[in-house]
């Protein structure tokens, strides 16, 4: 059974999984990063408190995050079809992945930014820094280690979600594992895909943590 066809299928699975995970993370950050910054900035002890904006984002993030991903996946099918033109395959899966990931990422970013020492922010403000400068030149820079750790964790979570999307024909390694392991009872192929997922996960984690610690100058 380990013929070329299976190997090609697995390689394509890896490619699709990487494509979905990385794309979703990137787009997730395009939405989640500003959202996280806004959450940190508008919170009561943020640099520009704003109860209305904070509450709005807070509720939105909680709402989306409280829906189990599998259900979100199904609920979003019409929307996905509207955006991508179809509801299955790797590209279609990116839509629910992004929607699930963005609030998750926003929370990660929010908590990273809140770790930044208030004294350093105060020092920057005493130099005449604007709010924008405080965010871009102080908060994001000082929090970079924590932000990268957050990104690493987010990437791992999205990888897991992408595999889950396999249950509804999402493509990638998760899809293969479900099709062969569950539908056809070919356990060996399922085991191999699971091992591949674990390896991918490990690579992401190790690379992310290495980068974070390399960039950390606090020690």
């Amino acid at each position, binding site marked *: 059974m380990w013929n070329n066809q299976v190997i090609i299928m697995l390689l394509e699975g890896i490619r699709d999984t990487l494509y979905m995970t990385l794309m979703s993370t990137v787009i997730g950050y395009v939405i989640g990063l500003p959202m996280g910054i806004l959450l940190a900035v508008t919170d009561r002890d943020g640099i520009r408190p704003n109860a209305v904006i904070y509450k709005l984002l807070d509720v939105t993030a909680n709402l989306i995050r409280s829906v189990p991903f599998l259900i979100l996946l199904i609920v979003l099918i019409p929307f996905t079809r509207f955006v991508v033109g179809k509801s299955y395959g790797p590209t279609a899966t990116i839509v629910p992945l992004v929607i699930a990931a963005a609030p998750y990422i926003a929370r990660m970013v929010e908590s990273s930014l809140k770790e930044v*020492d208030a*004294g*350093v922010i105060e*020092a920057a*403000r*005493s*130099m*005449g*820094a604007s709010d924008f400068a405080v965010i871009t030149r102080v908060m994001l820079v000082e929090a970079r*280690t924590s932000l990268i750790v957050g990104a690493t964790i987010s990437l791992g979570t999205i990888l897991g979600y992408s595999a889950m999307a396999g249950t509804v024909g999402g493509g990638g390694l998760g899809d293969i594992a479900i099709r062969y392991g569950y539908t056809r009872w070919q356990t060996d192929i399922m085991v191999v895909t699971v091992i591949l997922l674990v390896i991918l996960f490990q690579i992401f984690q190790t690379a992310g943590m290495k980068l974070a610690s390399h960039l950390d100058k606090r020690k």
Partner: protein
Amino acid sequence: MAAIEVRHLYKSFTQKGMTVEALSDINLTVEQGDIYGIIGMSGAGKSTLVRCFNYLERPTDGQVLIEGRELGSLTEKELRVQRSEIAMIFQNFNLLMQKNVLDNICFPMRLSGKKKSEARQRARELLAMVGLAEKERAYPAQLSGGQKQRVAIARALACEPKILLCDEATSALDPQTTAAILELLREINRSLGITIIIITHQMSVIREVCNRVAIIERGVLVENGRVEEIFSHPKSRAARELILRDGPGGAGEGDRPVLPERMSGGKKLRIVFSENSAFEPLIANMILKFGAPVNILRADTKNVGGVAKGEMILGLPEDGHLQIDIEKYLKEKGLEIEEVTGDVE
């Protein structure tokens, strides 16, 4: 024109329905070239007050004028420009931990739009000035407290400020380092003519470098004036307490004096000498004259604004008549005396 003028300043904080009156009716004037100390116990409102000097904290009421400009009348943008002319250093240094020393000093210059190469050149000059030229590539985490504060001072000077605010800048440092940092501040004041505000809870810091001082107690300014004046004739209870707590010797040797004996009971007099030479013969003669022992509860000399001042606290004999005679005798000799009340330690 005064560097800083504060008029009827009030600041209150409201938290969970509770209002804390952090400052009330503060009035003070800091002249150009002053090294102005602000002293008070923890929670007195010192930090809040200096943060009003650059409007990091907006007063609830009253005015702050910097060289005649009222901060409350400035727009957000004008205020930011104004802030860049008032530098600040802190107890915890507040350096950017992810940037090296050179980039930390460049930071305010880059903020105000200076070119990178120019900023670096100036940063190197400043680093040499604070004596850390060889550390430009180090990160703050690799420096000692004193070195971090030197970097913070270099950073504070980067944009050529007219005023330097120091909030407990030496409180996290050991005595030697404190003395060195104070010396650096004095040097900056002398050579660059920068007005310096020093917040502290240590009287020794005030005594070492300040020419003027304001004493804050629970949000109220209880006394202010020239440092020698306040050391010689403290009027408020808070001032006397702070002076008593001030240990002998140099700055930063701790808040607690080593008392030869715990002061308690009986009548106590505080004497201030301007010249040390008058010290011993006078007390010796007094004892000879009255044939009664007096207890020297505390004696030391302090360097107040560069002038040596002797201070002595005498415990008098129980005899009431003798007490009156002794007081009279000391006054005749032209000494400033004052009764010390309460149990002091």
